């Protein structure tokens, strides 16, 4: 078990800068998820930690030791790959024990540790099978078993669930969560799926274009996204974003308005002066719809309703053509083309600076 710290870590391929100075501190036993759209550098960052990519600049420390130029096997890490990367010509037992074989562990201990790993993953009955005889989920377990058996200081997961089907993915997600509690190990997990990030993480790192957008606990990111990118990325359905103009600035925040939004005072620390353009963000769950146009601050027309059982998703077209999404309790009944007004608690809304460009 160990802490991990990335200090101004950089990676470039010639002129292409892929990782542009990343600072992350990972506590001992923490489950950290790197999340971001494809091409954001999250996998590269993980491979740099694993030692599979050279580090172009900055420092990487594992357990307080600088490991920039240390070979992968000396770093005390184990990695689980997206494609499982299990050896097709070996049995499950040999696969799990491969790291121990390489480390020349004695036969007794070898058996003990392989069996222990198999017991943790509940796959003792599969030990003598070949990978070709396993299902996707079982292969993933073998890959995790290979990591567990080496008792590494840090576990690295590179999109381990993206090759599984939806139902299996949920099961494995829960198992990885349980595994983390059971082993109490430091884990770093890369995914592009914000649901995995939200459910598993102690701490989420949102990356974009090789830069950290925000680091924080899942609910902090959900409630207090630091910028528009995080606001869009975290949460499903995605946060509603409305271009607004500041009408006046008050002691607590700004009074903002837009075409189909009545002036409303939003408490915020976001800087702005009268006339500035800002973006108002409000989660679909915090919008309360009403047929009465007078009660609400936001106005629009129902474009489409989706009934999911637990909730109903309303697609609302605003007067200027832009869209809003509201998530309502199951019993809310609105039909297409209904005029609708929406109220919300200004304290639940966030104001963001518009993105440059």
């Amino acid at each position: 078990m160990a802490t991990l710290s990335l200090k101004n870590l950089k990676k470039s391929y010639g002129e292409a800068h892929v990782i542009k100075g990343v600072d992350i501190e990972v506590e001992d036993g923490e489950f950290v998820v790197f999340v971001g759209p494809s091409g954001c550098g999250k996998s590269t960052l993980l491979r740099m930690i694993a030692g599979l990519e050279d580090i172009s600049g900055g420092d990487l420390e594992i357990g307080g030791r600088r490991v920039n130029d240390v070979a992968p096997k000396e770093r005390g890490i184990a990695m689980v790959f997206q494609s499982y990367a299990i050896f097709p010509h070996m049995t499950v037992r040999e696969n799990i024990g491969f790291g121990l074989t390489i480390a020349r562990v004695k036969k007794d201990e070898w058996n003990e540790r392989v069996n222990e790993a198999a017991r943790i993953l509940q796959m003792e009955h599969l030990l003598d099978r070949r990978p070709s005889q396993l299902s996707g989920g079982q292969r993933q377990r073998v890959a995790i078993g290979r990591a567990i058996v080496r008792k590494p200081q840090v576990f690295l997961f590179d999109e381990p669930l993206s090759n599984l089907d939806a139902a299996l993915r949920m099961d494995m997600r829960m198992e990885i969560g349980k595994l983390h509690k059971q082993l109490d190990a430091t884990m770093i997990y890369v995914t592009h799926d914000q649901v995995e990030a939200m459910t598993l993480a102690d701490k989420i790192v949102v990356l974009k274009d090789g830069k950290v957008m925000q680091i924080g606990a899942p609910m902090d990111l959900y409630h207090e996204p630091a910028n528009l990118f995080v606001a869009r990325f975290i949460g499903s359905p995605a946060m509603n974003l409305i271009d607004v103009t500041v009408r006046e600035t008050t002691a607590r925040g700004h009074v903002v308005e837009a075409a189909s939004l009545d002036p409303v005072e939003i408490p915020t620390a976001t800087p702005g002066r009268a006339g500035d353009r800002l973006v108002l963000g409000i989660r679909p769950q915090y919008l309360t719809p009403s047929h009465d146009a007078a009660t609400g601050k936001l106005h629009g027309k129902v474009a489409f309703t989706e009934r999911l059982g637990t909730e109903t998703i309303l697609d609302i077209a605003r007067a200027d053509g832009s869209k809003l999404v509201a998530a309502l309790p199951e019993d809310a009944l609105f039909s297409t083309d209904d005029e609708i007004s929406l109220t919300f608690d200004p304290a639940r809304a966030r104001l963001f600076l518009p993105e440059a460009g």
Partner: protein
Amino acid sequence: MDNIAGTKSSLTWAVHLSVVVLVVLWLFPTVGLFVSSFRTSDQIASSGWWASMFPTEQNLVLRAAAPSAQVQEGTDFVISGNLFEGSTAGRISRWGTSSRAIDVYKAGETADLGDDKMLTVEADGSYRMVSPTEMTGGRGERVFVTAKTPPEFTFDNYRNMLFDPSNREGMSRAFISTLTVTIPATVIPIVIAAFAAYALAWMEFPGRALLIAAVVGLLVVPLQLALIPLLKFHNAIGIGKGFLGVWLAHTGFGLPLAIYLLRNYMVGLPRDIIENAKVDGATDFQIFIKIILPLSFPALASFAIFQFLWTWNDLLVAMVFLVDSTGETTVMTKAIVELLGTRGGNWEILATAAFISMAVPIAVFFAMQRYLVRGLLAGSVK
């Protein structure tokens, strides 16, 4: 839209036809050689190999037993036995006792030979000659028969060519020589090429791309270019003509293709697997031995088959680097060339020699054909 994968192409008949043509082209001479190698020179001279499968109608001149074999039964003297004694049995349809009338009697009929001497010949060749007086003379009665004889094959050619130690033209020594050339000439390049291919596929070092380009370049260099300089070099450093020289030559000529094939295969193995092994602490050598080699088995096998067939059938390289005037190191291809000169008319000898030389490649091919196809496709189709 008829040519989408999975639907039958309208040219299926052309495919089938060309398969049939190829199979016939291959089978006709091969089976011919095979059958001829089991026939005597007389049979080869008198009929084609395709006729040897069926019973043939032949006119034979056979002899009954000599008068000394007669026994007295009552007042008669009798000679009986089987005309086919000492040769293959057949079924007699017609027979005669004079060279001018060889088919006057049917099987089972009785001929009067004069002097009250009667001869009866049955279809299976058994005969009975009865005479009231004692028969005289040194030789048995001649009988001309028209008989259907069943196919007849002999192992004599093989016994003669392989197991007769007194036969100076025998193939056994050449067979051993060929094996001595072929096995090391297959194993050595594979071992070297496997290491080289791993390095060129998965290890990073300066000049790697140039090396690969050089290997590809060497693929198209004709080996005839190198024969004389290489032989001079071998002589200069004291290897001279011999097995070591021919092993080195085959290794050198085989390496470009071996490295190229194996590298292409290895580079197609999943990167994750190799990186995973690296993270697990394996060194390059351990990755090579424990992961790459077992996974590259189809490619290794396919190249091994190629190299084996090519060195087995090679004449040119062996002539230049191995065969000398002592004849101790003659390989089979060379032995067959010599037989063509000295025994050009003895087809049964040539067919047998050729088939001995073909047998091993054919066996290797049939035993390993699935690796051949798999290894060839492995680089291109994923």
